[in-house]
């Protein structure tokens, strides 16, 4: 049992660190051939335009999309959320598996990036928002799981979780416990 971490570019080693803290095996995904034996997925932060370009030559995303649609637990943070979203304002739709509309860099440029107190599944913690995407709207099949000042910054739909922020740069206990449960068995987490 392995968690695949998309490793085209971005903060993928920070996610690897989270996985090491909860004793889960992982494999870095750079190519379609890395997708076998993966039964959960993490799409990290970084630059979505860059990731989309890098995977073009071996069409990694069509394999990735099939894998996500097969129902394996999938977490996307920041750029990862942009890759998952069905509609992207000021950017390109790529995987399009999460029924949300997100806007790239909607909180502003780097000078407006911030640490904010997020309510994630009932627990409050300071998390980093770095040139973060905003969740503008979502369909009925999508449930909010994270908010900041009543604004939704994290959602779940079936096996897919998308977060605007970077829990992997904080690695607090509540997040790591949740991550461990989610990646091992997405179903139990959904009932939260």
């Amino acid at each position, binding site marked *: 049992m392995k968690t695949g971490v998309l*490793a*085209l*570019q*971005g*903060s*993928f*080693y*920070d996610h690897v660190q989270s996985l090491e803290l909860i004793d889960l095996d992982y494999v870095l995904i*750079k190519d379609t051939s890395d997708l076998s034996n993966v039964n959960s997925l993490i799409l990290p*932060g*970084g*630059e979505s*335009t*860059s990731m989309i*370009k*890098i995977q073009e*030559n071996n069409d990694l995303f069509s394999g990735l999309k099939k894998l996500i649609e097969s129902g394996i637990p999938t977490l996307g943070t*920041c*750029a990862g959320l942009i890759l998952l979203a069905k509609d992207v304002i*000021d*950017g390109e739709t790529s995987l399009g598996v999460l029924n949300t509309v997100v806007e*790239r*860099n909607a909180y502003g*440029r*780097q*000078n*407006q*990036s*911030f*640490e*904010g*107190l997020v309510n994630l599944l009932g627990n409050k913690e*300071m998390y*980093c928002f*770095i*040139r973060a995407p905003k969740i503008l709207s979502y369909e009925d099949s999508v449930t909010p799981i994270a908010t*900041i*000042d009543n604004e939704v910054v994290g959602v779940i739909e079936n096996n897919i979780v998308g977060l605007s922020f*970077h829990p992997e*740069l904080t690695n607090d206990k509540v997040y790591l416990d949740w991550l461990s449960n989610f990646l091992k068995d997405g179903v139990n987490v959904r009932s939260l």
Partner: protein
Amino acid sequence: MKIESTFKIKKGLAEMLKGGVIMDVVNAEQAVIAEKSGAVAVMALERIPADIRAEGGVARMSSVETIQEVIDSVSIPVMAKARIGHFVEAQMLESLGIDFIDESEVLTPADDKNHIYKHDIKTPFVNGATDIGEACRRIGEGAAMIRTKGEAGTGNVIEAVKHMRSMTDGINKIKTSDQNELMSLAKEIKAPFDVVKEIHELGKLPVVNFAAGGIATPADAALMMQLGCDGVFVGSGIFKSGDPKERAEAIVIATTNYNDPEKLIEVSKNLGEPMVGINIDDLDEAEKLAKRGW
């Protein structure tokens, strides 16, 4: 509750750039090519290093119009260079909404002793370093990202390799020292004690470390990644080559797949002419940009 521009947020943007390529551009047209080729960020500057080298004169921050034009033309982070010690150029870049400031030896220094005190500026800074002591001094001043200086505008990777190896040696030395030795070591390498102590505890630099200065081919980028860099800056290497778009894309793919020789071969085909390189020995000491900074 929201707090802007903490050091964690400054460092965080650099974390997001890891594994990527940051490209030097002098106008909006080049910035668009860079973004379409998969760059994670662009660096706006007045002239690319090879031209600064050839033309001489004082090299300064880009014009406000150029920076504005680059910001408006792309959706990826935009960096821009300020002269060493020129805190007013930095304040202006901060107000322009630049995402990262490079206090760069490629521009003519504005202060012969001091670098900018970077903690007071909201925008994160990247600084060049040739060894661990220099990296620690810059981090002490508030740099949120380090890059090797290499020798910009030469298309020759030897200095970047030298600086990266020297950095790795320095980190290993700090990592393996007894904690009783840290103060003496800090004194020896002229580094702030707190930063040395942090490196000792982490076993690595507390900020991201990129390669820069002389990277001209996909193989150069992969070499720097295998030497342990977190990502690469490419300056003159792209827009001084025969086919900038092809070369830019190839360097991006090579930076992701730095451990895969077959992929490196594939992207290195049909790239056109690389930039013409300069032997470091052919440069006068005064022409070496890496000597700038203190």
